[in-house]
């Protein structure tokens, strides 16, 4: 039985991150993470506490590091670079945004590489053996909805990436902390006071950003694929009624394609797999303003999984 990251002493984790790195596996991907920034050690220790601790992995998919390029930088205008192997794909960010930078960077690794899946920018959850895929158009509030569903018993596959198998269009988990921003943070805190949050990053280009720990069951089942169930396009509309309306598959296809990282790249195969995914899913539009009602609606929907 492998030890979990939470069982490591925080100081030990910190020194690991400053030397040989922390080896992390989430879903099908492995990372080696290095950083001398304390908030990153704290964030990882807390939010990936249920993940297994690997002393060493011979091969990692993504070798990443967050550090200041030089000592002078570190003292006077602390900024961090995100290194993917020896490249720096992004401009530096202030050290106050370190933890968010890490999570964004980890997302980037998946979004930009890894074409062996059809990838959608979407939240994915599971209940009763079927997958709920919610593509993330701006203003959708998908992360808030995703967090709420997870807190009410849905298994989290991902709040960011729908990884669709090219073989059979099943959904592959990559279970990581859920990112919440601005008002959503308080909304979820009220919704579930017991929710666990990592370092708060203020003044990012998205405003205030924080990450919420996934529940241990979701982490445990991080290698279990799920067959498609529902494809729902959420939209948060303040003061609105909760409404779930069916939509035709063809337009759902197009809308899902708009939220895909590599639909075009995969060409005919992309078309084939998207067809399978949409074909096997019940497609809906969803507008809401009240989280409790929203969860109830989805719970009812999940009973149609039979």
């Amino acid at each position: 039985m492998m030890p979990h990251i939470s069982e490591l002493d925080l100081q030990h984790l910190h020194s690991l991150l400053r030397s040989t790195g922390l080896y992390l596996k989430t879903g099908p991907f492995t990372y080696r993470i290095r950083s001398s920034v304390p908030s990153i050690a704290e964030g990882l220790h807390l939010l990936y506490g249920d993940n297994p601790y690997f002393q060493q992995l011979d091969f990692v998919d993504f070798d990443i590091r967050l550090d200041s390029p030089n000592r002078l930088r570190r003292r006077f205008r602390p900024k961090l670079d995100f290194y993917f192997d020896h490249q720096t794909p992004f401009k530096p960010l202030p050290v106050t945004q370190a933890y968010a930078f890490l999570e964004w960077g980890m997302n980037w690794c998946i979004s930009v590489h890894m074409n062996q899946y059809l990838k959608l920018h979407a939240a994915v959850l599971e209940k009763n053996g079927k997958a709920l895929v919610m593509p993330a158009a701006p203003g959708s509030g998908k992360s808030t909805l995703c967090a709420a569903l997870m807190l009410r018993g849905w298994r989290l596959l991902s709040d960011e990436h729908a990884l669709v198998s090219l073989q059979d269009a099943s959904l592959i988990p990559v279970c990581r902390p859920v990112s919440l921003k601005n008002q959503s943070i308080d909304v979820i805190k009220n919704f579930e006071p017991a929710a666990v949050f990592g370092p708060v990053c203020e003044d990012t280009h998205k405003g205030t950003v924080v990450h919420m720990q996934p529940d241990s069951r979701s982490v445990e089942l991080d290698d279990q694929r799920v067959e498609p169930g529902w494809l729902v396009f959420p939209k948060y509309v303040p003061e609105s009624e909760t409404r779930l309306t069916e939509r035709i598959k063809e337009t759902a296809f197009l809308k899902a394609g708009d939220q895909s990282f590599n639909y075009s790249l995969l060409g005919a195969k992309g078309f084939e797999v998207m067809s399978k995914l949409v074909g096997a899913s019940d497609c809906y539009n969803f507008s809401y303003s009240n989280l409790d009602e929203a969860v109830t609606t989805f719970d009812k929907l999940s009973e149609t999984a039979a």
Partner: protein
Amino acid sequence: MLYHTASGDTLLLSSTAVPLVARLQQGPLEKQALFEYAAEELNFELDESFISHMEEVLSGLMKRDIVATQ
């Protein structure tokens, strides 16, 4: 829905465009015969308004290089 392999375009065909494309996938055809076929399939009269609508659809398909004349 259709995937056009040459251009990489994905197409959503309306119900009136479907018989045109489907028939042409089997082989080239004279325009008149094509419209007759479509009228048959869609259960429409082959009248002026139908033909003008079909011309529109056809020219749209040609613009996207799905259909060409030879």
